Protein backbone atom coordinates (compact mmCIF):
# COMPACT_ATOMS: atom_id res chain seq x y z
CA UNK A 1 0.00 0.00 0.00
CA UNK A 2 1.41 3.33 -0.99
CA UNK A 3 2.01 5.27 2.18
CA UNK A 4 1.19 8.96 2.12
CA UNK A 5 3.48 10.76 4.50
CA UNK A 6 2.72 13.99 6.27
CA UNK A 7 4.58 17.13 5.19
CA UNK A 8 5.71 17.63 8.78
CA UNK A 9 7.10 14.09 9.13
CA UNK A 10 10.78 14.79 9.69
CA UNK A 11 11.72 11.12 9.94
CA UNK A 12 11.46 10.40 6.23
CA UNK A 13 14.23 10.13 3.69
CA UNK A 14 13.34 12.38 0.75
CA UNK A 15 14.53 11.58 -2.76
CA UNK A 16 14.35 14.21 -5.44
CA UNK A 17 13.79 12.35 -8.67
CA UNK A 18 12.41 8.87 -9.37
CA UNK A 19 14.76 7.61 -12.07
CA UNK A 20 17.62 5.11 -11.98
CA UNK A 21 19.15 6.74 -8.88
CA UNK A 22 16.18 8.00 -6.86
CA UNK A 23 13.75 5.23 -7.81
CA UNK A 24 16.25 2.50 -6.98
CA UNK A 25 17.43 4.10 -3.74
CA UNK A 26 13.80 4.64 -2.68
CA UNK A 27 12.85 1.00 -3.17
CA UNK A 28 16.04 -0.30 -1.55
CA UNK A 29 15.42 1.81 1.55
CA UNK A 30 11.72 0.89 1.67
CA UNK A 31 12.67 -2.80 1.54
CA UNK A 32 14.74 -2.18 4.67
CA UNK A 33 11.73 -0.64 6.40
CA UNK A 34 12.85 2.96 6.02
CA UNK A 35 10.18 5.54 5.21
CA UNK A 36 10.71 7.29 1.89
CA UNK A 37 9.09 10.16 0.00
CA UNK A 38 10.09 10.54 -3.63
CA UNK A 39 9.40 13.98 -5.06
CA UNK A 40 9.06 13.70 -8.83
CA UNK A 41 8.73 16.81 -11.00
CA UNK A 42 6.82 15.00 -13.73
CA UNK A 43 3.52 13.17 -13.99
CA UNK A 44 2.89 9.45 -13.58
CA UNK A 45 2.15 7.61 -16.82
CA UNK A 46 1.85 3.84 -16.58
CA UNK A 47 3.49 1.85 -19.35
CA UNK A 48 0.25 1.11 -21.14
CA UNK A 49 -0.02 4.87 -21.70
CA UNK A 50 3.24 5.19 -23.62
CA UNK A 51 2.94 6.28 -27.23
CA UNK A 52 4.52 4.63 -30.30
CA UNK A 53 5.03 8.02 -31.95
CA UNK A 54 8.19 10.05 -31.62
CA UNK A 55 6.87 13.59 -31.34
CA UNK A 56 3.75 12.66 -29.37
CA UNK A 57 5.88 10.68 -26.96
CA UNK A 58 8.34 13.54 -26.69
CA UNK A 59 5.44 15.78 -25.65
CA UNK A 60 4.36 13.19 -23.10
CA UNK A 61 7.71 12.38 -21.49
CA UNK A 62 10.52 14.78 -22.33
CA UNK A 63 11.88 17.43 -19.98
CA UNK A 64 11.08 20.52 -22.03
CA UNK A 65 11.26 23.19 -19.31
CA UNK A 66 13.34 26.04 -20.56
CA UNK A 67 17.12 25.75 -20.40
CA UNK A 68 19.80 27.75 -22.14
CA UNK A 69 23.09 26.66 -23.70
CA UNK A 70 26.49 28.08 -24.49
CA UNK A 71 29.82 26.79 -25.74
CA UNK A 72 31.13 25.39 -29.00
CA UNK A 73 29.00 22.25 -29.10
CA UNK A 74 26.65 22.09 -32.03
CA UNK A 75 23.61 21.43 -29.82
CA UNK A 76 23.92 25.04 -28.60
CA UNK A 77 23.30 26.24 -32.15
CA UNK A 78 20.73 23.70 -33.34
CA UNK A 79 18.79 23.14 -30.10
CA UNK A 80 19.65 26.17 -27.94
CA UNK A 81 16.89 25.42 -25.42
CA UNK A 82 17.17 21.64 -25.46
CA UNK A 83 20.64 20.68 -24.23
CA UNK A 84 19.43 17.29 -23.04
CA UNK A 85 16.91 14.71 -24.14
CA UNK A 86 15.83 13.36 -20.77
CA UNK A 87 12.53 12.67 -19.08
CA UNK A 88 10.17 14.50 -16.74
CA UNK A 89 7.90 11.72 -15.49
CA UNK A 90 7.78 9.08 -12.79
CA UNK A 91 10.55 6.66 -13.69
CA UNK A 92 12.67 9.51 -15.01
CA UNK A 93 14.94 8.61 -17.87
CA UNK A 94 14.53 4.88 -17.15
CA UNK A 95 11.30 5.19 -19.14
CA UNK A 96 13.30 6.43 -22.13
CA UNK A 97 16.64 4.67 -21.91
CA UNK A 98 17.60 2.00 -24.42
CA UNK A 99 18.55 -0.59 -21.82
CA UNK A 100 22.30 -1.06 -22.36
CA UNK A 101 23.75 -2.26 -19.05
CA UNK A 102 27.53 -2.36 -19.03
CA UNK A 103 29.99 -2.41 -16.16
CA UNK A 104 32.74 0.19 -16.17
CA UNK A 105 36.24 -1.08 -16.88
CA UNK A 106 38.80 -1.19 -14.08
CA UNK A 107 40.92 1.67 -15.43
CA UNK A 108 37.88 3.93 -15.82
CA UNK A 109 37.79 4.35 -12.02
CA UNK A 110 41.42 5.52 -12.14
CA UNK A 111 41.58 7.93 -15.04
CA UNK A 112 44.06 10.40 -13.60
CA UNK A 113 46.43 7.56 -12.69
CA UNK A 114 45.93 5.84 -16.04
CA UNK A 115 45.77 8.71 -18.50
CA UNK A 116 47.96 11.15 -16.58
CA UNK A 117 47.33 14.88 -16.42
CA UNK A 118 45.77 16.18 -19.63
CA UNK A 119 45.83 19.88 -20.49
CA UNK A 120 42.33 21.29 -20.19
CA UNK A 121 40.92 18.22 -18.44
CA UNK A 122 40.01 18.01 -14.75
CA UNK A 123 40.69 14.29 -14.42
CA UNK A 124 40.46 12.60 -11.03
CA UNK A 125 40.44 9.01 -9.78
CA UNK A 126 37.20 7.79 -8.29
CA UNK A 127 37.35 7.21 -4.53
CA UNK A 128 36.10 3.66 -5.21
CA UNK A 129 37.46 0.82 -7.32
CA UNK A 130 35.86 -1.65 -9.65
CA UNK A 131 36.51 -4.39 -7.07
CA UNK A 132 34.51 -2.47 -4.46
CA UNK A 133 31.62 -1.98 -6.85
CA UNK A 134 31.58 -5.49 -8.33
CA UNK A 135 29.24 -7.05 -5.74
CA UNK A 136 26.80 -4.20 -6.39
CA UNK A 137 27.12 -4.56 -10.15
CA UNK A 138 26.13 -8.20 -9.64
CA UNK A 139 23.07 -7.18 -7.60
CA UNK A 140 22.14 -4.57 -10.16
CA UNK A 141 22.40 -7.02 -13.05
CA UNK A 142 20.10 -9.40 -11.23
CA UNK A 143 17.67 -6.60 -10.38
CA UNK A 144 17.54 -5.33 -13.96
CA UNK A 145 17.56 -8.80 -15.50
CA UNK A 146 20.48 -7.99 -17.76
CA UNK A 147 20.78 -10.36 -20.71
CA UNK A 148 23.92 -12.50 -20.90
CA UNK A 149 24.20 -12.37 -17.09
CA UNK A 150 22.51 -14.62 -14.50
CA UNK A 151 21.90 -17.26 -17.22
CA UNK A 152 19.55 -14.91 -19.05
CA UNK A 153 19.68 -15.52 -22.81
CA UNK A 154 20.66 -12.71 -25.15
CA UNK A 155 18.06 -10.96 -27.26
CA UNK A 156 17.71 -12.08 -30.87
CA UNK A 157 19.46 -9.78 -33.32
CA UNK A 158 17.34 -7.59 -35.56
CA UNK A 159 18.17 -6.38 -39.06
CA UNK A 160 20.13 -3.39 -37.81
CA UNK A 161 22.24 -5.69 -35.63
CA UNK A 162 22.83 -8.14 -38.46
CA UNK A 163 24.28 -5.36 -40.62
CA UNK A 164 26.50 -4.26 -37.73
CA UNK A 165 27.64 -7.83 -37.04
CA UNK A 166 28.48 -8.49 -40.69
CA UNK A 167 30.56 -5.30 -40.79
CA UNK A 168 32.22 -6.07 -37.45
CA UNK A 169 33.30 -9.46 -38.76
CA UNK A 170 34.72 -7.87 -41.90
CA UNK A 171 36.70 -5.37 -39.82
CA UNK A 172 37.99 -8.12 -37.55
CA UNK A 173 36.21 -6.96 -34.41
CA UNK A 174 35.96 -9.79 -31.90
CA UNK A 175 33.41 -8.58 -29.37
CA UNK A 176 30.13 -7.92 -31.14
CA UNK A 177 26.90 -9.32 -29.71
CA UNK A 178 23.34 -8.36 -28.89
CA UNK A 179 24.49 -6.67 -25.79
CA UNK A 180 23.92 -6.78 -22.10
CA UNK A 181 20.46 -5.36 -22.07
CA UNK A 182 17.95 -4.71 -19.29
CA UNK A 183 15.28 -5.92 -21.71
CA UNK A 184 13.69 -9.27 -21.06
CA UNK A 185 14.51 -11.93 -23.62
CA UNK A 186 12.03 -14.09 -21.71
CA UNK A 187 9.45 -13.16 -19.05
CA UNK A 188 11.15 -12.36 -15.74
CA UNK A 189 10.35 -10.49 -12.55
CA UNK A 190 6.74 -9.78 -13.62
CA UNK A 191 7.96 -8.16 -16.81
CA UNK A 192 6.99 -9.37 -20.29
CA UNK A 193 9.43 -10.51 -22.93
CA UNK A 194 10.48 -8.09 -25.65
CA UNK A 195 8.22 -8.20 -28.72
CA UNK A 196 10.67 -6.35 -31.00
CA UNK A 197 8.32 -3.42 -31.27
CA UNK A 198 10.90 -0.68 -31.57
CA UNK A 199 10.18 2.64 -29.85
CA UNK A 200 12.41 1.81 -26.86
CA UNK A 201 13.07 5.56 -26.45
CA UNK A 202 9.35 6.22 -26.25
CA UNK A 203 8.78 3.98 -23.23
CA UNK A 204 8.27 0.22 -23.55
CA UNK A 205 4.57 -0.50 -23.91
CA UNK A 206 5.19 -4.14 -22.93
CA UNK A 207 7.10 -3.25 -19.81
CA UNK A 208 9.84 -5.58 -21.10
CA UNK A 209 12.60 -3.05 -20.43
CA UNK A 210 13.52 -2.35 -16.81
CA UNK A 211 12.25 0.97 -15.52
CA UNK A 212 11.88 2.22 -11.96
CA UNK A 213 8.32 3.18 -12.99
CA UNK A 214 7.06 -0.39 -12.98
CA UNK A 215 9.89 -2.28 -11.27
CA UNK A 216 11.28 -0.47 -8.25
CA UNK A 217 8.51 1.95 -7.37
CA UNK A 218 5.55 -0.46 -7.14
CA UNK A 219 7.72 -2.84 -5.10
CA UNK A 220 8.61 -0.02 -2.76
CA UNK A 221 4.99 1.08 -2.52
CA UNK A 222 3.96 -2.47 -1.63
CA UNK A 223 6.05 -2.29 1.55
CA UNK A 224 4.01 0.62 2.87
CA UNK A 225 7.22 2.58 3.33
CA UNK A 226 7.36 4.48 0.05
CA UNK A 227 5.34 7.33 -1.38
CA UNK A 228 6.08 8.78 -4.80
CA UNK A 229 4.65 12.26 -5.17
CA UNK A 230 4.32 13.24 -8.85
CA UNK A 231 4.13 16.82 -10.16
CA UNK A 232 6.30 17.97 -7.26
CA UNK A 233 9.08 20.23 -8.54
CA UNK A 234 11.83 20.73 -5.96
CA UNK A 235 12.89 24.36 -5.65
CA UNK A 236 15.14 24.56 -2.61
CA UNK A 237 16.63 22.40 0.13
CA UNK A 238 16.41 23.99 3.57
CA UNK A 239 18.90 23.57 6.39
CA UNK A 240 19.19 24.49 10.06
CA UNK A 241 21.80 26.53 11.92
CA UNK A 242 23.91 23.42 12.49
CA UNK A 243 24.22 23.03 8.72
CA UNK A 244 22.09 19.88 8.44
CA UNK A 245 19.37 19.76 5.81
CA UNK A 246 15.84 19.75 7.19
CA UNK A 247 13.43 19.61 4.28
CA UNK A 248 12.67 20.28 0.66
CA UNK A 249 10.56 23.14 -0.68
CA UNK A 250 8.68 22.10 -3.81
CA UNK A 251 5.95 23.42 -6.08
CA UNK A 252 2.97 21.04 -6.06
CA UNK A 253 0.70 20.18 -8.98
CA UNK A 254 -1.15 23.48 -8.54
CA UNK A 255 2.06 25.51 -8.35
CA UNK A 256 1.72 26.07 -4.59
CA UNK A 257 4.89 25.90 -2.54
CA UNK A 258 5.05 23.14 0.08
CA UNK A 259 7.79 21.95 2.33
CA UNK A 260 8.39 18.27 2.99
CA UNK A 261 10.42 17.83 6.14
CA UNK A 262 13.18 15.25 6.02
CA UNK A 263 15.76 13.41 8.08
CA UNK A 264 17.89 12.85 4.99
CA UNK A 265 17.69 14.31 1.48
CA UNK A 266 19.00 12.48 -1.61
CA UNK A 267 19.25 14.51 -4.80
CA UNK A 268 18.66 12.52 -7.98
CA UNK A 269 17.31 14.89 -10.58
CA UNK A 270 19.93 14.11 -13.27
CA UNK A 271 23.08 16.13 -13.89
CA UNK A 272 21.44 19.39 -14.91
CA UNK A 273 18.67 19.65 -12.31
CA UNK A 274 20.67 18.27 -9.37
CA UNK A 275 23.35 20.99 -9.38
CA UNK A 276 20.68 23.56 -10.29
CA UNK A 277 18.84 22.67 -7.08
CA UNK A 278 21.98 22.74 -4.93
CA UNK A 279 22.98 26.11 -6.39
CA UNK A 280 19.48 27.46 -5.98
CA UNK A 281 19.54 26.45 -2.31
CA UNK A 282 22.22 29.02 -1.47
CA UNK A 283 21.79 30.65 1.94
CA UNK A 284 23.72 33.06 4.13
CA UNK A 285 25.52 30.08 5.65
CA UNK A 286 26.17 28.49 2.23
CA UNK A 287 26.38 31.48 -0.12
CA UNK A 288 27.71 29.44 -3.08
CA UNK A 289 25.01 26.80 -2.80
CA UNK A 290 24.69 23.64 -0.74
CA UNK A 291 27.58 21.17 -0.63
CA UNK A 292 29.71 23.58 -2.62
CA UNK A 293 32.69 24.44 -0.41
CA UNK A 294 34.86 22.94 -3.17
CA UNK A 295 33.28 25.15 -5.80
CA UNK A 296 32.76 22.00 -7.90
CA UNK A 297 28.93 21.92 -7.89
CA UNK A 298 27.79 22.21 -11.50
CA UNK A 299 31.31 21.80 -12.91
CA UNK A 300 32.84 18.91 -14.88
CA UNK A 301 29.64 18.41 -16.87
CA UNK A 302 30.09 15.40 -19.12
CA UNK A 303 27.80 14.08 -21.83
CA UNK A 304 29.82 11.25 -23.34
CA UNK A 305 31.57 11.69 -26.64
CA UNK A 306 28.73 10.76 -28.91
CA UNK A 307 27.71 10.91 -32.53
CA UNK A 308 26.07 8.49 -34.92
CA UNK A 309 26.95 6.86 -38.19
CA UNK A 310 24.18 5.97 -40.60
CA UNK A 311 24.79 4.05 -43.80
CA UNK A 312 22.64 3.54 -46.90
CA UNK A 313 22.64 0.24 -48.72
CA UNK A 314 21.33 -0.86 -52.10
CA UNK A 315 18.91 -3.27 -50.42
CA UNK A 316 16.40 -2.79 -47.58
CA UNK A 317 17.32 -2.92 -43.89
CA UNK A 318 14.27 -1.60 -41.94
CA UNK A 319 16.51 -0.71 -39.00
CA UNK A 320 13.59 0.62 -36.92
CA UNK A 321 12.10 -2.85 -36.52
CA UNK A 322 12.86 -4.32 -33.13
CA UNK A 323 15.05 -3.23 -30.25
CA UNK A 324 16.49 0.25 -30.75
CA UNK A 325 19.84 -0.64 -29.21
CA UNK A 326 20.09 -4.14 -30.60
CA UNK A 327 23.78 -4.82 -30.48
CA UNK A 328 27.18 -3.59 -29.49
CA UNK A 329 30.84 -3.65 -30.50
CA UNK A 330 33.18 -3.37 -27.52
CA UNK A 331 36.58 -3.67 -29.22
CA UNK A 332 37.18 0.09 -29.24
CA UNK A 333 36.23 0.54 -25.57
CA UNK A 334 39.79 -0.19 -24.41
CA UNK A 335 42.25 2.51 -23.47
CA UNK A 336 44.81 2.57 -26.27
CA UNK A 337 46.46 5.98 -26.67
CA UNK A 338 48.10 4.83 -29.93
CA UNK A 339 44.77 5.70 -31.57
CA UNK A 340 45.42 9.36 -30.77
CA UNK A 341 43.23 9.74 -27.70
CA UNK A 342 42.87 8.35 -24.19
CA UNK A 343 39.87 6.29 -23.12
CA UNK A 344 37.63 4.39 -25.47
CA UNK A 345 34.21 4.12 -26.99
CA UNK A 346 31.42 1.65 -27.60
CA UNK A 347 29.55 1.29 -30.88
CA UNK A 348 25.88 0.41 -30.37
CA UNK A 349 23.13 0.06 -32.94
CA UNK A 350 20.62 2.85 -32.98
CA UNK A 351 17.67 3.79 -35.10
CA UNK A 352 15.40 6.78 -35.26
CA UNK A 353 11.97 6.88 -36.88
CA UNK A 354 11.49 9.07 -39.92
CA UNK A 355 10.32 12.14 -37.94
CA UNK A 356 13.37 12.16 -35.66
CA UNK A 357 15.73 11.23 -38.47
CA UNK A 358 14.54 14.36 -40.28
CA UNK A 359 15.20 16.43 -37.16
CA UNK A 360 18.54 14.93 -36.08
CA UNK A 361 20.42 13.49 -39.08
CA UNK A 362 21.97 16.85 -39.87
CA UNK A 363 20.06 19.61 -38.07
CA UNK A 364 19.54 22.70 -40.17
CA UNK A 365 20.59 20.99 -43.40
CA UNK A 366 18.37 21.24 -46.47
CA UNK A 367 18.46 20.47 -50.16
CA UNK A 368 19.06 17.25 -52.06
CA UNK A 369 22.17 16.16 -50.21
CA UNK A 370 19.97 15.90 -47.14
CA UNK A 371 16.72 14.69 -48.67
CA UNK A 372 18.26 11.91 -50.77
CA UNK A 373 19.46 10.42 -47.49
CA UNK A 374 15.90 10.31 -46.17
CA UNK A 375 14.67 8.96 -49.52
CA UNK A 376 16.46 5.74 -48.62
CA UNK A 377 15.27 5.62 -45.03
CA UNK A 378 14.24 1.96 -45.28
CA UNK A 379 17.67 1.08 -46.69
CA UNK A 380 19.50 2.64 -43.75
CA UNK A 381 21.40 1.08 -40.86
CA UNK A 382 22.57 3.07 -37.88
CA UNK A 383 24.91 3.03 -34.93
CA UNK A 384 25.64 5.30 -32.01
CA UNK A 385 29.02 6.21 -30.61
CA UNK A 386 29.33 6.39 -26.84
CA UNK A 387 32.76 7.18 -25.49
CA UNK A 388 34.46 8.66 -22.48
CA UNK A 389 34.64 12.46 -22.59
CA UNK A 390 37.00 14.58 -20.54
CA UNK A 391 35.72 16.43 -17.47
CA UNK A 392 36.40 20.16 -17.79
CA UNK A 393 35.74 22.76 -15.11
CA UNK A 394 34.51 25.14 -17.81
CA UNK A 395 31.82 22.67 -18.88
CA UNK A 396 29.24 23.44 -16.30
CA UNK A 397 25.72 24.06 -15.16
CA UNK A 398 25.06 27.54 -13.86
CA UNK A 399 21.97 29.45 -12.83
CA UNK A 400 20.88 31.87 -15.53
CA UNK A 401 21.31 35.45 -14.40
CA UNK A 402 17.89 36.66 -15.61
CA UNK A 403 15.66 33.88 -16.89
CA UNK A 404 13.32 32.26 -14.36
CA UNK A 405 10.90 29.37 -14.67
CA UNK A 406 7.21 29.47 -13.74
CA UNK A 407 8.10 28.99 -10.08
CA UNK A 408 10.58 31.85 -10.08
CA UNK A 409 13.58 29.53 -10.03
CA UNK A 410 16.53 30.52 -12.22
CA UNK A 411 16.76 28.30 -15.30
CA UNK A 412 19.88 26.21 -15.89
CA UNK A 413 22.47 27.20 -18.45
CA UNK A 414 24.50 24.34 -19.87
CA UNK A 415 27.94 25.23 -21.17
CA UNK A 416 29.94 22.69 -23.12
CA UNK A 417 33.09 22.77 -25.23
CA UNK A 418 34.61 19.61 -26.66
CA UNK A 419 38.07 18.73 -25.38
CA UNK A 420 40.56 17.91 -28.15
CA UNK A 421 40.52 14.32 -26.88
CA UNK A 422 36.74 14.17 -27.40
CA UNK A 423 37.06 15.40 -30.98
CA UNK A 424 39.87 12.97 -31.80
CA UNK A 425 37.83 10.08 -30.39
CA UNK A 426 34.70 11.08 -32.29
CA UNK A 427 36.61 11.39 -35.56
CA UNK A 428 38.13 7.95 -35.01
CA UNK A 429 34.70 6.48 -34.34
CA UNK A 430 33.19 8.14 -37.41
CA UNK A 431 35.95 6.60 -39.50
CA UNK A 432 35.48 3.13 -38.01
CA UNK A 433 31.70 3.27 -38.30
CA UNK A 434 31.86 4.39 -41.92
CA UNK A 435 34.44 1.72 -42.75
CA UNK A 436 32.26 -0.92 -41.10
CA UNK A 437 29.25 -0.05 -43.24
CA UNK A 438 31.37 0.35 -46.37
CA UNK A 439 32.68 -3.18 -45.77
CA UNK A 440 29.11 -4.51 -46.10
CA UNK A 441 28.42 -2.48 -49.21
CA UNK A 442 27.12 0.88 -48.01
CA UNK A 443 26.85 3.30 -50.92
CA UNK A 444 26.86 6.35 -48.65
CA UNK A 445 27.52 7.02 -44.97
CA UNK A 446 26.68 9.94 -42.69
CA UNK A 447 28.77 11.13 -39.72
CA UNK A 448 25.84 12.46 -37.70
CA UNK A 449 26.46 15.02 -34.96
CA UNK A 450 25.61 14.38 -31.30
CA UNK A 451 21.95 14.65 -30.31
CA UNK A 452 20.84 16.63 -27.26
CA UNK A 453 22.53 14.81 -24.38
CA UNK A 454 21.00 11.65 -23.01
CA UNK A 455 23.95 10.79 -20.73
CA UNK A 456 24.43 13.75 -18.42
CA UNK A 457 27.14 13.20 -15.83
CA UNK A 458 29.62 14.58 -13.37
CA UNK A 459 28.25 17.83 -12.03
CA UNK A 460 28.39 16.79 -8.33
CA UNK A 461 31.37 14.53 -8.51
CA UNK A 462 32.72 12.03 -6.01
CA UNK A 463 36.16 12.63 -4.61
CA UNK A 464 38.45 11.31 -1.92
CA UNK A 465 39.26 14.84 -0.75
CA UNK A 466 36.59 17.43 0.01
CA UNK A 467 38.53 20.05 -1.95
CA UNK A 468 38.25 18.08 -5.22
CA UNK A 469 34.59 17.28 -5.40
CA UNK A 470 31.11 17.44 -3.92
CA UNK A 471 30.43 13.99 -2.44
CA UNK A 472 32.40 11.14 -0.89
CA UNK A 473 32.51 7.54 -2.03
CA UNK A 474 29.00 6.92 -0.72
CA UNK A 475 27.53 9.88 -2.55
CA UNK A 476 27.32 11.73 0.76
CA UNK A 477 28.05 15.45 0.59
CA UNK A 478 31.47 16.29 2.01
CA UNK A 479 29.94 19.35 3.67
CA UNK A 480 26.57 18.07 4.91
CA UNK A 481 26.29 14.56 6.26
CA UNK A 482 22.54 14.11 5.78
CA UNK A 483 22.63 15.25 2.14
CA UNK A 484 23.31 12.72 -0.61
CA UNK A 485 23.59 12.71 -4.38
CA UNK A 486 22.21 9.56 -5.98
CA UNK A 487 22.29 10.09 -9.74
CA UNK A 488 24.92 10.22 -12.49
CA UNK A 489 26.02 13.65 -11.34
CA UNK A 490 28.18 11.91 -8.71
CA UNK A 491 30.33 10.24 -11.40
CA UNK A 492 33.94 11.35 -11.05
CA UNK A 493 34.54 10.52 -14.71
CA UNK A 494 32.19 9.12 -17.32
CA UNK A 495 33.66 5.86 -18.61
CA UNK A 496 32.78 4.63 -22.07
CA UNK A 497 29.70 2.75 -20.88
CA UNK A 498 26.06 3.73 -20.76
CA UNK A 499 25.70 4.99 -17.19
CA UNK A 500 22.47 3.44 -15.87
CA UNK A 501 23.88 0.17 -14.51
CA UNK A 502 26.53 2.10 -12.58
CA UNK A 503 23.93 4.55 -11.23
CA UNK A 504 21.79 1.63 -10.03
CA UNK A 505 24.80 -0.14 -8.49
CA UNK A 506 25.81 3.01 -6.62
CA UNK A 507 22.22 3.48 -5.40
CA UNK A 508 22.06 -0.08 -4.01
CA UNK A 509 25.38 0.51 -2.27
CA UNK A 510 24.25 3.90 -0.99
CA UNK A 511 21.07 2.38 0.47
CA UNK A 512 23.18 -0.01 2.55
CA UNK A 513 25.30 2.90 3.78
CA UNK A 514 22.34 5.14 4.62
CA UNK A 515 20.62 2.31 6.53
CA UNK A 516 23.82 1.64 8.53
CA UNK A 517 24.30 5.30 9.33
CA UNK A 518 20.67 5.67 10.36
CA UNK A 519 20.78 2.69 12.72
CA UNK A 520 24.05 3.97 14.15
CA UNK A 521 22.21 7.28 14.66
CA UNK A 522 25.02 9.14 12.97
CA UNK A 523 22.55 10.77 10.57
Amino acid sequence: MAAPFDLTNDGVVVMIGSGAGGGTLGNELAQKGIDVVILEAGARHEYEDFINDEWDSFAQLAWTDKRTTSGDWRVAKDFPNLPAWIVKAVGGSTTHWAGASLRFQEHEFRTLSTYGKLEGANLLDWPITLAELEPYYAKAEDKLGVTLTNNIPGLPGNNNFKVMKAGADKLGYKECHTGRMAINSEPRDDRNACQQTGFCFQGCKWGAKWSTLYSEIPKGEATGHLEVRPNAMAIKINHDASGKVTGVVYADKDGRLQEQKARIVAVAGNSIESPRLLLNSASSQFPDGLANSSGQVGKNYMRHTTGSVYGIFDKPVHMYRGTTMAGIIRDEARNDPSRGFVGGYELETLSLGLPFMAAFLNPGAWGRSFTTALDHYDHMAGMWIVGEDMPREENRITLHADLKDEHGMAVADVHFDDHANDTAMRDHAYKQGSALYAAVGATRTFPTPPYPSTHNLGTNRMSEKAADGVVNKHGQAHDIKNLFVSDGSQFTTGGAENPTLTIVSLAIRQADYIAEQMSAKSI
Partner: protein
Amino acid sequence: MATLIQMARDIYPHDQVPDKYYAIAVKAHDEQAGKDPAHKDLIENGIAELDSKSGKGGYTSLGWEEQRVAVLREIEDTPFFQAVRGGLVVGLYNQKEVWPIFGYEGESYSKGGYMARGFDDIEWL
Protein backbone atom coordinates in the same frame (compact mmCIF):
# COMPACT_ATOMS: atom_id res chain seq x y z
CA MET B 1 0.69 29.78 -51.43
CA ALA B 2 2.08 28.44 -54.71
CA THR B 3 5.39 30.16 -54.01
CA LEU B 4 5.49 28.77 -50.50
CA ILE B 5 4.77 25.25 -51.72
CA GLN B 6 7.49 25.50 -54.36
CA MET B 7 9.88 26.86 -51.76
CA ALA B 8 9.02 23.99 -49.40
CA ARG B 9 9.71 21.46 -52.14
CA ASP B 10 13.00 23.13 -53.01
CA ILE B 11 14.09 23.06 -49.37
CA TYR B 12 13.19 19.40 -48.84
CA PRO B 13 12.85 17.95 -52.35
CA HIS B 14 11.35 14.47 -52.48
CA ASP B 15 10.22 13.73 -56.03
CA GLN B 16 8.03 10.86 -54.89
CA VAL B 17 6.05 13.04 -52.43
CA PRO B 18 3.01 14.77 -54.00
CA ASP B 19 2.43 18.52 -53.63
CA LYS B 20 -0.48 18.09 -51.28
CA TYR B 21 1.77 17.06 -48.42
CA TYR B 22 3.96 20.13 -48.91
CA ALA B 23 0.76 22.21 -48.97
CA ILE B 24 -0.38 20.70 -45.67
CA ALA B 25 3.06 21.34 -44.21
CA VAL B 26 3.11 25.07 -45.01
CA LYS B 27 -0.57 25.66 -44.26
CA ALA B 28 0.32 26.25 -40.62
CA HIS B 29 1.97 29.53 -41.68
CA ASP B 30 -1.32 30.69 -43.22
CA GLU B 31 -3.16 29.83 -40.04
CA GLN B 32 -0.60 31.51 -37.83
CA ALA B 33 -0.53 34.58 -40.08
CA GLY B 34 -4.31 34.85 -39.63
CA LYS B 35 -3.83 35.19 -35.88
CA ASP B 36 -0.48 36.94 -35.66
CA PRO B 37 0.20 40.11 -37.73
CA ALA B 38 3.93 39.83 -37.13
CA HIS B 39 3.94 36.35 -38.62
CA LYS B 40 1.84 37.58 -41.55
CA ASP B 41 4.46 40.27 -42.24
CA LEU B 42 7.28 37.77 -41.91
CA ILE B 43 5.77 35.44 -44.51
CA GLU B 44 4.46 38.10 -46.92
CA ASN B 45 7.63 40.18 -46.85
CA GLY B 46 9.71 37.03 -47.13
CA ILE B 47 7.89 35.89 -50.24
CA ALA B 48 8.14 39.39 -51.73
CA GLU B 49 11.89 39.39 -51.17
CA LEU B 50 12.20 35.92 -52.65
CA ASP B 51 10.31 37.06 -55.75
CA SER B 52 12.30 40.25 -56.15
CA LYS B 53 15.60 38.37 -55.92
CA SER B 54 14.35 35.95 -58.59
CA GLY B 55 13.98 38.44 -61.44
CA LYS B 56 10.91 39.81 -63.07
CA GLY B 57 8.90 36.59 -63.31
CA GLY B 58 9.34 35.88 -59.62
CA TYR B 59 10.49 32.72 -57.82
CA THR B 60 8.15 30.26 -59.47
CA SER B 61 9.21 31.36 -62.94
CA LEU B 62 12.72 30.03 -62.40
CA GLY B 63 12.63 26.77 -64.32
CA TRP B 64 15.45 24.78 -62.73
CA GLU B 65 15.61 23.75 -59.11
CA GLU B 66 19.24 24.83 -58.95
CA GLN B 67 18.27 28.36 -60.03
CA ARG B 68 15.73 28.54 -57.22
CA VAL B 69 18.13 26.98 -54.73
CA ALA B 70 20.68 29.68 -55.59
CA VAL B 71 18.13 32.30 -54.52
CA LEU B 72 17.30 30.34 -51.36
CA ARG B 73 21.03 30.21 -50.48
CA GLU B 74 21.02 34.01 -50.49
CA ILE B 75 18.27 34.15 -47.87
CA GLU B 76 18.93 31.00 -45.86
CA ASP B 77 19.98 32.90 -42.75
CA THR B 78 16.86 35.07 -42.67
CA PRO B 79 14.12 34.54 -40.07
CA PHE B 80 11.68 33.96 -42.95
CA PHE B 81 13.67 31.09 -44.42
CA GLN B 82 14.35 29.57 -41.04
CA ALA B 83 10.68 29.78 -40.06
CA VAL B 84 9.66 27.96 -43.25
CA ARG B 85 12.45 25.38 -43.03
CA GLY B 86 12.03 24.81 -39.30
CA GLY B 87 8.28 24.36 -39.67
CA LEU B 88 8.76 21.77 -42.39
CA VAL B 89 10.89 19.47 -40.24
CA VAL B 90 7.84 18.53 -38.23
CA GLY B 91 5.14 19.74 -40.65
CA LEU B 92 6.28 17.55 -43.53
CA TYR B 93 7.97 14.55 -41.94
CA ASN B 94 5.50 14.05 -39.13
CA GLN B 95 2.57 13.44 -41.45
CA LYS B 96 1.64 9.80 -40.99
CA GLU B 97 0.42 9.65 -44.61
CA VAL B 98 3.93 10.50 -45.79
CA TRP B 99 5.67 7.74 -43.82
CA PRO B 100 4.83 4.81 -46.14
CA ILE B 101 6.36 6.72 -49.05
CA PHE B 102 9.68 6.49 -47.20
CA GLY B 103 9.12 2.92 -46.07
CA TYR B 104 8.58 3.86 -42.43
CA GLU B 105 5.89 1.77 -40.77
CA GLY B 106 5.15 3.89 -37.68
CA GLU B 107 3.29 2.51 -34.68
CA SER B 108 3.80 -1.22 -34.18
CA TYR B 109 2.56 -2.12 -30.70
CA SER B 110 -1.03 -2.73 -31.81
CA LYS B 111 0.28 -5.23 -34.36
CA GLY B 112 2.27 -7.11 -31.75
CA GLY B 113 5.58 -5.51 -32.65
CA TYR B 114 7.83 -7.08 -35.27
CA MET B 115 8.49 -10.38 -33.48
CA ALA B 116 6.56 -12.20 -36.19
CA ARG B 117 6.68 -9.42 -38.75
CA GLY B 118 10.21 -9.29 -40.02
CA PHE B 119 12.45 -7.75 -37.34
CA ASP B 120 15.23 -10.05 -38.57
CA ASP B 121 14.18 -10.74 -42.14
CA ILE B 122 17.25 -9.35 -43.86
CA GLU B 123 18.49 -11.79 -46.49
CA TRP B 124 21.12 -10.04 -48.54
CA LEU B 125 24.01 -10.03 -46.10
